[in-house]
């Protein structure tokens, strides 16, 4: 036992240690969702991440929350996090201003695999805040537009005013061979688009089931219906990826909170190939 341990080097730093970084910019996306741009040119050194990975953001004296990185992975120096204000930590984050300092540690977790999408069509299906962890995917796909087939973005929000990244949604739509379909649960007088759940958008597109990779992120119930719908359209399960959410205290597999059956969402996920967790999705209160 001693020898086994002696051969392993001590970890360079503490897995639970947070690093202070300065907020460069705060953008309110809607009433209760905002994007923080963090200046990473400091303590953490060279920071790189893969689309779908997340950080633990710490508010001094208040606590930590797991937040996906929502910026372009090829951008250096700064990172975006798009945060839905739902409770203690996210509210404290929402009160931060440009120039304030928060703690960050990461990046953690698995990522959306882009290599499998080469030369194929890509269908991004998201609801609510679920668009945030997929925005780095969209940036990456558009950056190397020619390496992929069609890009289809299906996005559902509660109401028109709740939609995230509205300017960018329009810009993406203008890109070559990109289809962006947006739906809302409740429209308003100015809304001329789709109304209904995000799965209903699938009936407006022709999915090439033999040649499409699907990335799905949103509330669990939305993901379940989406998967059923994709299965019905003959998309092989192993072409579908989804990102799961559970309570998370440590992000490194020590706290036990994020267990999802045999998996730890923090280190085995949050992004899973569907076959890995398909049987788990049907288990209630897992």
């Amino acid at each position, binding site marked *: 036992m001693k020898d086994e*341990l002696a051969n392993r080097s001590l970890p360079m730093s*503490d897995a639970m240690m947070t690093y202070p970084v300065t907020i460069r910019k705060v953008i309110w996306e809607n009433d209760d969702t905002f994007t923080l741009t963090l200046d990473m040119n400091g303590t953490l050194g060279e920071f790189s991440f893969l689309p779908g990975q997340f950080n633990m953001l*710490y508010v*001094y004296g208040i606590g930590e929350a797991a937040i996906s990185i929502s910026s372009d992975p090829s951008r250096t120096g700064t990172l975006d996090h798009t945060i839905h204000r739902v409770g203690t930590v996210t509210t404290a984050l929402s009160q931060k201003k440009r120039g304030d300092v928060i703690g960050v540690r990461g990046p953690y977790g698995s990522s959306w695999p882009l290599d499998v999408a080469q030369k194929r069509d890509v269908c991004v299906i998201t609801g609510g805040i679920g668009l945030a962890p997929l925005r780095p995917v969209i940036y990456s796909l558009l950056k190397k537009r020619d390496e992929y087939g069609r890009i289809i973005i299906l996005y559902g929000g509660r109401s028109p005013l709740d939609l995230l990244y509205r300017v960018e949604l329009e810009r993406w739509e203008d890109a070559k061979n990109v289809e962006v379909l947006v739906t809302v649960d409740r429209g308003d007088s100015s809304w001329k688009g789709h109304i209904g759940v995000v799965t209903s958008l699938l009936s407006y597109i022709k999915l090439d089931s033999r040649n499409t990779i699907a990335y799905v992120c949103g509330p669990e119930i939305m993901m379940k219906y989406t998967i059923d719908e994709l299965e019905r359209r003959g998309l092989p399960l192993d072409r579908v990826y989804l990102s799961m959410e559970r*309570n998370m205290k440590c992000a*490194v597999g*020590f*706290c036990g909170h994020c267990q999802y059956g045999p998996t730890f969402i923090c280190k085995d996920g949050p992004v899973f190939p569907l076959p890995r967790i398909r049987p788990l999705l049907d288990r209630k209160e897992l």
Partner: protein
Amino acid sequence: MVIIGFTHFDELLSALRKRDYTVIGPVARDGAIALDVILSASDLPKGCHDEQQPGSYFLRHEEDEAIFGYVVGPQSWKKYLYPPRLKLFSAKREGKGFEIVSDSATPSPKYAFLGVRPCEIGAIKINDSVFDGGQYSDARYVSTRKDACVIAVNCTRPAGNCFCVSMNTGPRATHAFDLALTEICENGTHHFVVDVGSELGQSILEDVTHRQAEKNEIERALDLLSTSAAGMCKSLETEGLPQLLNDNYEHPEWDDVAKRCLACANCTMVCPTCFCSTVDDITDLTGDHAERWRRWDSCFTSDFTKIAGGNIRMSTRTRYRQWMMHKLAHWHDQFGTSGCVGCGRCITWCPVGIDITHEAQHIRETSISTINS
């Protein structure tokens, strides 16, 4: 194998202290065996014998001189390897931000764990795989563990809830110790038959008066250990257990156990392999000083699975199921072994005497998959 006479036992403690170890071992306290700092052999619980049943523990005092006459108490070495409360860092406010002023790297003492039972060695190996077996390592755990000296004590008698034989962890320590002692206290003899497990163990032994063991002395020790194994009343049939539990995710037994379980979390606190934790953030009144603490948590607590949409596991039924399926099924997927070492603590310290072996056996006998097929 060698023999250390009881009268020379204090030399073992001196040999450990000479090497700067803080010796932690069993003490009798509040009617149970607890773990604490041991200064001399007289601190060890002489003549104490535990009687354990589901939901019951009783420490009996007898006239004999045995210092390891009991089996396992409610505490385990996790108390030292990953303490119930640990400061992760302190920070102080600095302008619009903060600065980290200390971290958890504050070294823990160099521990010698005295009286580690074979099942507990199994548990420590499991702790290793949790905190130091994957992508991330817990720095504090790794350094405490790396420095720790393990003096095991084999079990010449099982307690009422032990089932280490089923879990392949006891009653004799076979690996991962520096020294392993089998206490023989009978017919006027009181000595320890000692196995050396490492160079460190060998060097410690050199500071303690000892002699080569006679063949009959070794045989007597092995005899006691095999009698102990044979005398274990409890067992857990592990064959195919992960699959069995997975097939019975909706078994009615989960409802039945939920009627009895108080969701008190005792089982998780006493289990030597349960590792869940949460964090607390605190500040002083001025807010100029903040601390982040890690503390043991349990999958039975009400907000363990809270997310913005609500709690995932709402009922005692699903919390007990998570606990037991994690131990006996998912652990295999996560760490390649069972999460249970058969120490029986969760059975003894459950206020209503819920018995993990009975629950598993009941599900086996009434398996939905068997009934359906």
